[in-house]
Structure formats: structure tokens, C-alpha cells
């Protein structure tokens, strides 16, 4: 795998060929090019209002192990 990763890293070095001084990094590739709000297509965060989340038993149902009281995920001790 070391040889394969080296070949990919050599290819990635192509991004060093360019002069990118003063070029802003992309954040949201489509929205970056659009005027800001109130343009309706612009992304926006939803209102910060509390809403129901998954019930605890549903959230725990897929876990490999849960605690005996059924209230949390069960994991091995960090220092056994």
C-alpha cells in the first residue's frame, strides 16, 4: 500500500504547479457564485427552534451493545 499511496501523492503534487496567490478557497461551490440573501436559492440555516429528536430506544436499537438500564451505549473500558 505504501507504493500505491506514493503514486497517488505524486499525482496530487500537480496542485503545486499553480500560482494561487489571492484566490479564495471554495466554501459552497454553487452559492459562492451567487448574490447573498434574500436571493431564495441561497442556502440558509433553519430557525433555531427546539424539535423532537429520535426516541432514545430507537436511537439505541442499532447499537452492538447497550447499558443494562437501557439508557446508553455500552463500550469496553478505556483502560482495561
Amino acid at each position, binding site marked *: *500500500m505504501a507504493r*500505491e*499511496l506514493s*503514486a*497517488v*501523492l505524486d*499525482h*496530487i*503534487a*500537480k*496542485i*503545486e*504547479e*499553480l500560482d*494561487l496567490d489571492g*484566490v*479564495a*478557497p*471554495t*466554501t*459552497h*461551490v*454553487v*452559492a*459562492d*457564485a451567487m448574490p447573498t440573501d434574500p436571493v*431564495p*436559492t*441561497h*442556502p*440558509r*440555516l*433553519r430557525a433555531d427552534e427546539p424539535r423532537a429528536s*429520535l426516541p432514545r430506544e*430507537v*436511537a439505541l*436499537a*442499532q*447499537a*452492538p*451493545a447497550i447499558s443494562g438500564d437501557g439508557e446508553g*451505549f455500552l*463500550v*469496553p*473500558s*478505556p*483502560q*482495561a
Partner: protein
Amino acid sequence: MSDAEIIGLSATEAAAEIEAGSLSAQELFEAYRGRAASDRAAGEGGLNCFTWVAEDVPDGTAPAPLGGIPLAVKDLFCTEGVPSQSGSRILEGYLPPYTATAVSRLTEAGATLLAKTNQDEFAMGSSTENSAYGPVLNPWNRERVPGGSSGGSAAAVAAALAPWALGTDTGGSIRQPAALCGIVGLKPTYGSVSRYGMIAFASSLDQAGPLTRDVTDAALMLRHLVGRDACDATSLAFPEEIALPSAERLDGVRLGVPAELSGASTGGEGEGIEAGVLDAFRASLDRAAELGAEIVQSISLPHAPQALAAYYVLAPAEASSNLARFDGVRYGLRADDAKDLLDMYTRTRHDGFGAEVKRRIMLGTYALSSGYYDAFYGRAQRVRTKIAEDFRAAFAEVDLIVTPTAPTVAFKLGEKTGDPLQMYLNDYCTVPMSLAGIPAISIPCGLSEGLPVGLQIAAPAFGENRLLDAAHALERAIGFDSSPARR
């Protein structure tokens, strides 16, 4: 209607037959369910398109407008109570407690979940050979790959094991398998379809879209997919309704052929574009000219040669972050008999991830490591800005950009698995559009060595209606015969 007649219908035609009362949703579903279940039962003795197939035919009537059209969905979409593993062992046994927005929008419009489709693990691959479920075979030639990562979706539609399918595209994962399987695949504008409930690969690039038998079906599915979703903060309101395409001519349409992606600068060598692919591509430009299009050979995407390098920084970096959640705690696989917490994490990820996923996590964590972030991720995001600017400059000169979708036809199973860089070069012509966030479609444009060749057409952001119209006109003029794959 006989089963042969039923599977001969496109999704749009089948919806019309149901509406007219000449076909029932149950008959349609059972025709496809039987075909899909046979393929699933045959495993790698079949095409191995599916990871799950519905057992029951739904009773009752499905709502209009889709009226019960069966839908195949790439494994990485969460579907409530239905296995969703993104082709990975690490999500063994996972039954999501909710459904992805893209899937629920289609079922609310009347589509019915038929099957989940095989894919490269976490959508990392261009051949669907990196799947915990084994490889998918190409229905045109079973010794060949279907492309990837949405290879199960593409092969299923090509072989008429499903009328249409949902896939995802990060660097070409809808368009390239569509090209290699001789069907239509559309990657929409980034943000136009919600990513909520898609098991994430590279969040700034991932986009869901249709894999269909024809351009009209792609438009019909897209119409019901797009829209702002409060559960995905990057999703955008689509500014207009998606229309079903009707164009038969291309009068006045300026089609740009970028030298960097069409073999024009190097005779195809730099991009590794095969002669047979270039022949089919050039023949489609002739068809376009006959329909009245103006072919503009002078446009340039000067940063396209750096696109693949930037992509292989950005996508692995985002993947390494997204895949940190698979740690054996909340869902899926957990390694047995771990001696402590760290040992449990390490062994779970060692056992659960395949080689390509591990390779990309290592690349990504390297690119994001302290002191390297600016040199890799920061720099790649700046290259990305230049690529997006290249496309904006090009679209000041032309309406649409055309290239071959993939540099080669479907290659042999195992041919490229030993050389990751060769595999990555499959996405040479599709990655630039992904980085720019613009819509692009692949339509079949001919055969080379008896295998399908794809034509890629790209449009400015939110230009899907023009894109679909042009693709429709070209599809009619090319008249590609996809029936050999539907046995």
C-alpha cells in the same frame, strides 16, 4: 400485458399506462420484482446488482403522478427498516430508523421501493469491485465492470431489472457507470437535491441523481427530487420546475468542446481517451451540428488538468472525517473480545473497512494533518475556485459543454484493481464538473468494441432544463439501441 411488453416500457411510459388503466401498479411491480429477485438469488452467478429486494408486492394503489413505478435505490441511501450498508461490512445488519429525503420525495410522488443496489464501498471506486457484496457485472459483457460507484443501479437499469434507479455522484459515480452500461445518468447542480440520509462520502461534492433508460425518465425523476430541505443546510431551492424535455432540434445552441477534456490538445493521450471513444464522441458532434448546433472548438478549461489532483485531496479528506463515525459504538459491526476501548475501535475498523476505503482514509488524514492542511486541503479548495471560474468563463461563450464521459469503454474485471491511480483516471472528464458543482448528464452515443460509449453534456448551475432538452434532441438523433443489454 406480457412481462416482455411491460419491461419494454420506460418509467414515463409505464406511468402513463397505469394512469390510462391498461396496466396495474401490481403487475408492473411483480414483473420487475421477479427479475430483481432472480438476480439477487443468483448472487455472483447473476449480475449481482442488488443488496436487498422487496419480498411483497404492495397492495392498494400508489399515488399519482408516479402511480407505483418501482424504484431501485443505491445502498447508501438510508431506508427505514431496510438494510442500508453503503456496500460496507462495517454497517453489517444496520436498519436505519429513518429514510433519506431523496427517497421519501420519490415515494411521496408515488414511486415504490423495489430494491437496494450494490455499489463500491462508501461510493469509493469506479468499477463496483470494492463492495462487501462482491462485484457487479456489466450486462453488455459479463467479463467487464459496470463502472462505479453506482454500478448496481446502472447495471440494473441497463438489464431491465429495474425501470429506473437512484444513484449518487461525487466525482462521476452516476455518469461513468451510466456511460459504461449504455444508459442515461444525471448529476444535478450541487445542493439541488437534499443529502439528508445519504451515508456521506465527501459532503461538499456528493449529489444524488437519476440513472434511467432515457432522458425523459431522468427529467421525470429529477422533477420530484429537487428542492430545499430543512434537514440539509447546503440544499438550495431550485428556481424553476423541471419540465419533461421536448426539443428535437439544437438550432442556435452553442456546444463548447474543451480542448483539455476532448483529446483535442493531445490526440487523447494526456487524458487516456481511447480512439474508439473519440470516434463515437466526434460522430455525436456531427449529429449535433446536423440538428443545428454550433460546435465551438475554441473554449478552454485551463485548470482541468489539475482537477483530479485537487479531487483526490478534497474527497479523501472529507471522507476521513465523515467515516470517523464508524467506530463500533452506535451501529453496525463491532469486533469481539476487544481488550479496551481503543482496541475495540481499531479492530472494528480493521475488520469492517475494505482496502480502498482504508487507502482513502489514510490519504485524507495525511492531507488534514497538523501543518499540512493549508498545503493540501486549503490549496485544493483554491484550485476548485479556479475550476469553477474556468466554467463560468466558458459559459460566457457557449451554452453547454460536451466531452466524452469516460476515457474508455467498460474494462475487464480485475484489470485496474492493482493500480489505484489508473482506476482514478476513469473520472478525468467527470471530476471537473463535480468540483464546479454544475449539472452534467451522460447519454449513450454509440458503441466501441461492442460496448457503450457515453457523451457528457454539462450546463451552468441550475441549467438542468436546457441540459435535458439538448440531451433529448441528441438522444433522438443518435438513436442508440439499448436492447442487447435487456435479456
